[in-house]
């Protein structure tokens, strides 16, 4: 995780500082894993079924779509931007591809159509944010409503039913290979690919540079606009794919699939340690955040906790994550300052 990218001519204090940064953020992901383990442990001790094959499969399936969206979203958030339109894109894609599949399309063309719609939405977001310099919050809030409107117009009160979808698509939603369901597998592959790119390619590192300081990145010759555009494009494509997966999983779809999910995705990303101020975090953390939020939802039901608590707990986690980030950032800044003074 650490050595591959370090150029040999780096000086010792720089390397140790970098190791320190890595350690802190690995600790962040580690703390998520610990929280998750504790949650699963407590729940499983109360009800053994929680860790049965079916129980684990359920959690992985529940997480797949959210984690996919969180991976795309974290790329945008790392560049100090935000994509609130993802929920609407999922809804639009789920309905439009469902409509096409019901009229006899094959699965592959439908997936491509879904990703293309997502890409188009991402492109519009990206162009408005990066080239027209409109704040991301306003742009994506606007596209959220526009895309939702288009979705409602196309759907016009209709519904996609499971019986009209090809059996192949439905088995994609709940089938598995070697005991691992397809959906989480797809998410995992995409997450690792994007995670590797962001971590190990120079152009991947530039996303972090932009998020840390857009001005400095621009002066250093980073093609800021192109990178931001790419981040939105990826987020859009993944939202499009998530829309198809949503359809595969639920089978019955009306116009408002994933309604309100944009905020859930942002929560997963922030809980996962991606700083909302940009420049910090990883897609693995974001996916872990999604896993944690989903597991809490399932655990509360199994533990027979009143469902009204679920939102309160999600909110508390968000606040905790933001406070931890703040404290960590301050500590880290102080440590780095001390080191450079003594080194």
């Amino acid at each position, binding site marked *: 995780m650490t050595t591959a990218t370090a150029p040999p001519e780096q000086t010792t204090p720089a390397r140790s500082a970098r190791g320190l940064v890595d350690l802190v953020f690995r600790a962040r992901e580690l703390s998520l894993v610990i929280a998750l383990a504790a949650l699963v442990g407590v729940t499983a001790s109360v*009800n053994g*079924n*929680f860790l*049965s094959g*079916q*129980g684990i499969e*359920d959690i992985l399936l*529940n997480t797949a779509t959210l984690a996919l969206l969180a991976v795309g979203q974290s790329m945008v958030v790392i560049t100090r931007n*935000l994509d*609130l339109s993802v929920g609407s894109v999922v809804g639009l894609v789920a309905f439009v591809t469902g409509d096409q599949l019901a009229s006899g399309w094959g699965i592959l063309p439908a997936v491509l159509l879904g990703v293309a719609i997502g890409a188009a939405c991402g492109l519009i977001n990206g162009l408005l944010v990066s080239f027209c310099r409109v704040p991301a*919050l306003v742009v994506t*809030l606007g596209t959220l409503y526009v895309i939702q*409107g288009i979705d*409602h117009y196309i*759907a*016009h*009160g*209709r*519904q996609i*039913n*499971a*019986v009209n979808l090809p059996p192949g698509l*439905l088995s994609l*939603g*709940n*089938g598995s290979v070697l005991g691992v369901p397809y959906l989480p597998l797809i998410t995992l592959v995409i997450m690792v690919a994007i995670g590797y790119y962001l971590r190990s390619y120079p152009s991947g590192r530039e996303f972090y540079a932009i998020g840390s300081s857009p001005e400095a990145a621009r002066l250093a010759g980073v093609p800021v606009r192109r990178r931001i555009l790419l981040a939105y494009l990826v987020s859009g494509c993944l939202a499009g794919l998530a829309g198809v997966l949503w359809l595969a*999983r*639920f*089978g*019955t*779809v*009306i*116009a*408002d*699939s*994933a*309604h309100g999910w944009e*905020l859930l995705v*942002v*929560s997963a990303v922030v809980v996962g340690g991606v700083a*909302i101020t940009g420049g910090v975090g990883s897609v693995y953390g974001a996916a872990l955040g999604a896993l944690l939020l989903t597991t809490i*939802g*399932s655990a*509360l*039901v*199994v*533990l*027979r906790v009143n*469902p*009204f608590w679920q939102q309160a707990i999600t909110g508390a986690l*968000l606040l905790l994550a933001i406070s931890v980030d703040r404290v960590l950032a301050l500590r880290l800044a102080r440590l780095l300052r001390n080191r450079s003074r003594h080194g």
Partner: protein
Amino acid sequence: MTPMRLTAVTALLALGVAACSGTTKSTVTSAPAPAPASSSSAAKADPNAPIKQGLKLAFLPKAINNPYETIVDNAGIEAAKEYQGEAKEVGPSDASASSQISYINTLTQQGHDAILIAANDANAVCGPLQQARAKGIKIVAYDSDAAPECRDLFINQASSEEVGRSQVKLLAGMIGNKGDIAILSATANATNQNTWIKFMKDELGKPEYKDMKLVKVAYGDDDDQKSFTQTQGLLQAYPNLKGIISPTTVGISAAARYISGSKYKGKVVLTGLGTPNQMRQFVKDKTVEKFALWNPKDLGYLASYAAAALVSGQITGAEGETFKAGKLGERTIGKQGEVILGPPFTFDAANIDQFDY
């Protein structure tokens, strides 16, 4: 920080809406006198009056993107053609309490003969409806009632008591009156759901169901993902669960989809209220044996004829009056201006292919 800002915006919007509804209410209280006229001083009902030609009706559903309401409204619009009337559907894109108000006001100005409404909030729409009635427009509520003093008739899909009791009977028949059961409802404060659940509990109190135990009422909020998770949780938390009743179309289809791909298929009996099209897949793959619903097309048809009968003076909305509802035959108005469509219909593998909605 961004979500926080968003919350602030939403809060502001909500305030704005609250302020709006406040004003509407106050205008109503300032002009209360003419409203009740239609029931008290109106001409007596003349059951033999012919249905007027060229009536203008408008359907105002909870939200235009609700598939169920689309079926109901289209059937009502078709029915209007039978008596040479003209009907249309208009409505908001979200099912919030206040969103129907501006539509009611517009329809009132356009001078329709009758407005048929599935109220999002029984009281929020009351003021504008009173104003419409003051101008001689007849109001027929269907699917979801408005406060009784604000409408002339309510077309109820089925009596709440019958829905609740028949759901328990349906499930009991499939699990042999024995075992733990759960209910997967919509939102915790949905009036129709809670009324049905109340009657289900009452039915379960009868001696023949002494071996059936209701262990949990879960809420899926009419959201796919949430209904899914709730179903998973129910099956994990209560390993002895024998049956689930989901009296909501979103809930039953999500639960069926989950069970169809899990190890619980064939072990847990699922029933509830769903439309034949959305449940067809799960009846065919034997996840679900039987479920129930009324015919939403008949609901729209009946509402349309009831509105025409009101406008034509065949009925005034008083208890005991009767009118002819086309192919559905003669209907009688019950207490508080309610007309009941009929008992819920049970779908199974043998009959499901005869229905397309």
